[in-house]
């Protein structure tokens, strides 16, 4: 089934909208350049209103970029209408054609391509099998559950063997459990089909679970792109660090570098941080610490006061105050470890390799 995999490239793309209230123009997407490798699964992640959908709709052709050029498999596609683009989109609302049954929904695009009846039939049946909907082809769309409708939407896009598959928050209408199983399913199908996928979501765990590459957007611009690990362990700024998972921030000043590590002075105490390449000696810096990499003990760098201590099962959750700053700590496998109670005083510490400077 794997036809030609296509990559997508955005070069300095901008989209300007008019604010309906003030009638002022603003950039919904601003000067965005990105490269999506053929066959990879890329997620656009960001808070509401950051321009994810707009970016996706420009790739699909529903919106025209006001600046820049979009390439699909090396070809510029700015002037192509959506029906002429080798893309297929899975909509948030599924957008199934309510007056057709499942078979006709999936066959719609194939019929438009004037394939013969037999070919259409085999292709549709194969795809329905792939998404686990065999035997349901005669049902109407309103006789399906949300998850099944989602599969039809996916099948309908996949059957066209598009160069790139576009998803706009396809799972947001499903309940939490189904969301998790469907995303595994989507990833499996995408890999089986070997298709390029661009996936929009504002759910970070979805992005982490699915992606080869995550692109974090904020207010119309890309803040960071990279593998889930890079994004998680080496966020470039506080926005990214905070958006992906929880993060603790310690403000300080870079004193010096020692054998690749940075020595950061925080309120007079010097701490060692492994990832500190980008920060010059003497510059202000922020140390980013993930809750699960922060250790609470009787000895450490800084004394803190425990304000919340609760058992979460897999871990003990602490909120502690370092002066005026609140820090979050996850102590995994709490069984058999020392548990601090509310009001206790303790010290926090961390391994140099688990922290980094921004």
């Amino acid at each position: 089934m794997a036809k030609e995999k296509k990559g997508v490239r955005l070069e300095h793309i901008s989209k300007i909208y008019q604010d309906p209230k003030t009638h002022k123009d603003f950039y919904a997407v601003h000067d965005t350049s990105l490269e999506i490798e053929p066959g990879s699964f890329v997620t656009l992640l960001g808070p509401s209103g950051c321009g994810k959908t707009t970016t996706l709709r420009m790739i699909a052709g529903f919106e025209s970029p006001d600046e820049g050029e979009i390439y699909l498999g090396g070809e510029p596609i700015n002037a192509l209408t959506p029906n002429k683009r080798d893309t297929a989109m899975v909509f948030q609302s599924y957008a199934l054609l309510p007056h057709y049954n499942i078979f006709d929904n999936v066959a719609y695009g194939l019929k438009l391509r004037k394939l013969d009846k037999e070919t259409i039939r085999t292709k549709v049946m194969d795809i329905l099998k792939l998404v686990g909907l065999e035997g349901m082809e005669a049902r109407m769309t309103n006789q399906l559950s949300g998850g099944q409708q989602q599969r039809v939407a996916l099948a309908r896009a996949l059957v066209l063997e598009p160069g790139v598959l576009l998803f706009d928050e396809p799972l947001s209408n499903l309940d939490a459990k189904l969301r998790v199983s469907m995303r595994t399913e989507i990833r499996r199908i995408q890999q089986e089909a070997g298709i390029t996928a661009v996936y929009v979501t504002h759910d970070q765990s979805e992005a982490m679970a699915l992606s080869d590459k995550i692109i974090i957007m904020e207010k119309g611009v890309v803040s960071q792109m990279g593998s889930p690990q890079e994004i998680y362990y080496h966020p470039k700024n506080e926005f990214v660090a905070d958006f992906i998972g929880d993060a603790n921030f310690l403000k300080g000043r870079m004193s010096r570098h020692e054998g690749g590590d940075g020595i950061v002075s925080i309120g007079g105490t010097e701490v060692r941080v492994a990832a500190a390449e980008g920060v010059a000696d003497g510059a202000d810096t922020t140390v980013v610490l993930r809750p699960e990499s922060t250790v609470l003990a009787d000895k450490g760098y800084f004394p803190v006061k425990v304000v919340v201590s609760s058992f979460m099962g897999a871990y003990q959750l602490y909120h502690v105050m370092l002066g005026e700053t609140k820090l979050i700590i996850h102590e995994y496998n709490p069984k058999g470890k020392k548990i601090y109670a509310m009001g206790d005083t303790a010290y926090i510490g961390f391994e140099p390799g688990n922290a980094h400077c921004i």
Partner: protein
Amino acid sequence: MATAQGAALDRKKLMADPIMVTTIVVLITFLTLFILYPLAILLIDSLYGDGNGLSLSVFKRVLAMPTFTRAIGNTLKIGFVVGILSTLIGLLFAYVEVYVKMNRFAGGLFKLVSMLPVVSPPFVLSLSMIMLFGRSGLITRFLLGIYDNNVYGYWGIVIVQTLTFFPVCYMMLKGLLKNIDPSLEEAARDMGASRWKVFTDVTFPLMLPGLGNAFLVTFIESIADFANPMIIGGSYDTLATTIYLQITGAMDKVGAAAMAVVLLCITLAMFAVQKFYLESKTAATLTGKASRARMLIEDKSVTIPLTILCSLGALFVIVMYICVPIGALFPTWGYKFTPLTFKWFGQVFSKYKGLKAFRDSFVLSLIASPITALLSMIISYLVVKRKFKAKGFIEAVSMLAMAVPGTVLGVGYIRGFSGGLFRTGFLQGLYGTGAILIIVFVVRSLPTGTRSGISALRQIDKSIEESAYDMGADSFKVFMTVTLPLIKDSFLSGLVTAFVRSITAISAIILLVTPSYLLITVQINEFAEKGAFSIACAFATILILITYGSVLLMNLVMKFFGTSRKIKEDE
């Protein structure tokens, strides 16, 4: 400017879709030629009509005619009074329906009353008014023994128009009242306000823009009405009838053009206020649906009198409508009531070329209605689902047509097409043909069709059509395979509405019809003018049977073939 690239790309994408481009061009041409041009020619006529270049002399001349200035006064006075009365009666009915616990029978009456004016020819109530309350009226003469009651004139028009238009207000206000959140009123009740106080302090202020809206809509309908003043106005002339007489009696087409411009200005001004001021205000005060069901008033001392009052009113209206078919069965109205006879119906066909009249009206309307329905669906689709430069123009002009009285359009067509376009002879062949009658039918029904098409399309998630587009369908395919099937019901009812409106139309058509076409409505008007009420009633009865029949047929078809309803219900 950076947006230039986006706009240029949008244009390029549009151009890649030849069917879409053709449709837009054809639409723009149609709207310009058959709505804007006739109105423009009226203005040109009245400014240049006396042959001395640009001057106001034509306006001066017509404004010096006492008949005309009197007609302006009459029209405004009637519009105002009818507007107020219809709004108040409509409000009463709406309030009773939404707030008061009613029995099934009264509910049925209300429904009937709201439907009758929509499917009836425009002058039915005038006919029955004359037959019930006129000089030899059933009620005035035989019940009350009044021998010289004069229904013709001011009061006749006011009563007939009010009875014709209040159901429209009732439907509008019902929608509004249903949207008021009951908790607002309950809060006031809770603080100790009486029901009356709640109404005056909460409900009424919330509805005020809506009431203004209903008033203006009725006002516009009233001053545009031609048929009722024609039949029951007697010597009391309104603008519509004066313009008609200026053409058919005084043969002063240029004067009529200037008068039409005056009438148009009045309706346009009202329309502008309604559209841009009141509609947005209504939307602002009443946002969204009521959150909960409303506690109905069950207090018998309130429900019984209100229900009886409204039911009686409704019954009266229904009797007025039934009066026409019954009138056609009496041997001689006013003198001899038995035995009932079909002789008038016989005469319709034997003596008065009834068959030709019905065939002509029927065929022309039958051709016009699918064109209207399709055009209004295409316009709605373009307006709701697509974006392109000329969209504003298309939307504005098709809505503008709503504010143009039929008489004005009729005069515009006479001036605009009798000598060809701009009197060059180009397209002159159109004038006097059935084609121009069909075009008038289409233009007259287009705004209603477009409005209901737009609201039907707004219900459909935009991404459904986008998904089809994305899978490779072009605009034409999307429209035919997705949009149209999803609004099948709306399309069907648009079809029937257009048919009913066309076959009952008179105001524009009466100015344009030539002897080669006999139209039922024109016939009815003619016989009513002559005082031949039995024949007029017989004609009207058959017309009513046709329109009711087609509505029933539509309901049947929708029941068995309407997919869109099934989809909606199951969701």
